[in-house]
């Protein structure tokens, strides 16, 4: 039996090949569940599925009725219980109520913007300046300037970077009937809410 060539039995697949095929299939089936384990590597902390509060530095939730026009605050998102993690530059966002000429007077979500404070050039923390004639985000390090309406860099080194690295990541907002401002679950991709420290495509 063992010395008999496969062709004489009329089989198209020899016993050996069939066994090999089974072994290969077994190996694939055995290791398939581990493909999903690649998710071990990315940090899941940033991917929230629920709405988050816009928590101002004084601990209160931002409200459209009380938050001043043409004003900004630094907020932490996603906020953790660990004070060290909350100091993380990548969790600091600039919560801006636009000046009235850009529609900041409306008591709705379109009057607000939340942009990552990490400058797209070399990751310093920029900040919104409400003064007359400024009304823009300015990075203290190399002078990149950001448009508060779109988050796009219009001057300085960040503006020279090719898309998506010239537009700040942005969080989507929602206002409930009490006027409280909520952050919608973000989609961390360049085509969604953007990647912190890298950028976003304007859609």
């Amino acid at each position: 039996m063992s010395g008999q060539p496969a062709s004489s039995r009329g089989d198209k697949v020899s016993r050996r090949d069939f066994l090999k095929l089974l072994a290969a299939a077994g190996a694939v089936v055995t290791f398939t569940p581990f493909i999903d384990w690649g998710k071990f590597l990315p940090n899941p902390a940033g991917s929230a599925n629920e709405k988050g509060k816009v928590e101002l530095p004084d601990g209160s939730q931002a409200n459209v009725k009380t938050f001043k026009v043409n004003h900004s605050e630094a907020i932490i998102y996603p906020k953790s219980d660990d004070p060290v993690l909350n100091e993380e530059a990548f969790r600091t966002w600039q919560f801006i109520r636009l000046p009235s000429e850009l529609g900041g007077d409306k008591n709705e979500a379109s009057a607000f913007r939340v942009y990552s404070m990490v400058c797209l050039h070399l990751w310093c923390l920029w900040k919104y300046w409400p003064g007359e004639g400024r009304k823009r985000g300015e990075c203290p390090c190399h002078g990149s300037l950001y448009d508060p309406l779109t988050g796009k860099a219009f001057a300085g080194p960040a503006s020279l970077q090719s898309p998506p690295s010239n537009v700040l990541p942005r969080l989507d907002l929602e206002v409930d009937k009490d006027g409280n401002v909520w952050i919608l679950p973000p989609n961390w991709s360049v085509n969604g809410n953007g990647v912190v420290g890298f950028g976003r495509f304007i859609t």
Partner: protein
Amino acid sequence: MGMKFTIPTRFVSPLGFLGMLTFILFIILGITGAFLMLWYEPILDRAWDSVENINDTIPYGFHMRNIHYHASNAMVMMAILHMYYQYFSGRYKIRNEILWVTGILIGVLTILEAFTGYDIIFSERAELAISIAASLTNSIPILGPDMRAAFFGSGFHDFILRFYAFHVFFLPIVLIGLMALHFPRFMVFDVPMVMAIAGAVMITGGVFPVDMGLKFDPNVPPGITVPEWYLTGLYAFLRSQYDKFVTGVAWPGLFIFTLLIVPFIDRYKKFSWKDRPIITAIGITSIAQIVVTTYWGFYIDPDRTKSLLERLVIDPIFLYSVMIALVPLSFGFTYLMIKLVKNAEANAKKQPKKSEATITLPEKWIYYVFVALIGFQIYLNIAAYYAVLNGMKNISLFIIGIIMLVFAGMYHLYRHGRFNANNPPAPTIPIREKIKSDEQKSLEDSSIPKDQLSYENQTKSKGLLNTLLGKGKKSRTSFEKMWNRE
């Protein structure tokens, strides 16, 4: 794969065992790095402070950190020199392709290892490096964002912890694995050279102690920082502000890929650089381009009246034109050199052979010098001890480096004395002539064509190597074994 391990009895040119020196530096880095792990804390707000603690407070922490830092630079340097020596001497042939390919991979990982190392200090310069690395990873089409999420996590906290894990475990373990594959058939462990390289590292640490940099604070404008010297070449390309993926990923990737396939495109039957003009010219071109871009990456217009951007940005057209112009220049230079060297060799053949000069120290003087060196060592030990007591850390490190160098000299002297004792000098002319003719015969007997024996040409021109290969029978036979193996 049988491996031959040699401790040479005479001075051998270190060019042949640069790889061994790289490995020694790797061991030094492993030991000092393990000790640094006892104090370093890879945490967002504490990383820089813990390095400062090591540097300023922990006894001998300054020494450990400086040895670790300078040995890492030396390792990258040695790896590059080792690669180019193997490249120009054509040793990646004769079934050494696997050694070459693993060697290139080890080189790339070595640079990554050094890179992750200086990032986890989390100074301003480290932050610059991390931000560039992250944006380059992100710029890779399709896979980039996922790769960034996988390798860098999100935010500085993850970066530091992950780079630390890569630095102390993932990369070294892969390096060790590749090194096991990379081990050559013929290995030289030269004690004086090992001591000298360790001493040189410490002396550099004493003279140029590495600074702490400034702690990174995202609210404070950083000063102008440039990366470590082995990355400034890449930095010059990045500073041209051209597309990130092309300049930061595609160009270095192309360079590494070219190096990987060199043994498979080099169809020359000969080994010597003089007989492989195109390969040699490509090598010279790469060296010229590396040197120019490395310098360019460091250079920042000192004119402070200009805006920072103007000072930093390199005109891409200028940069790329220079890169292209270097190609014909290097090719011309190489072909000219080959022509000149071949002419010089042809002329040298016509001249009568000069007898080589050797330094032989009388036995009595060997003892005197030895005792004097030990006395010097004792003095240096006391000096190093006092320097530590007085808080002069870099001076003590410098002196310890000198001690290592003196030990290297002592070992060499010991070796010299032992060699003389084993081979009593009886330099009567007939015997020497006889040895020479025997050598000539044994060379002619070997099956290799003469022009392939790269060392043979050197014996004619270099006295030092001549003494080594003419008298050090041990190493000669090992070399021959290596070359004869098919």
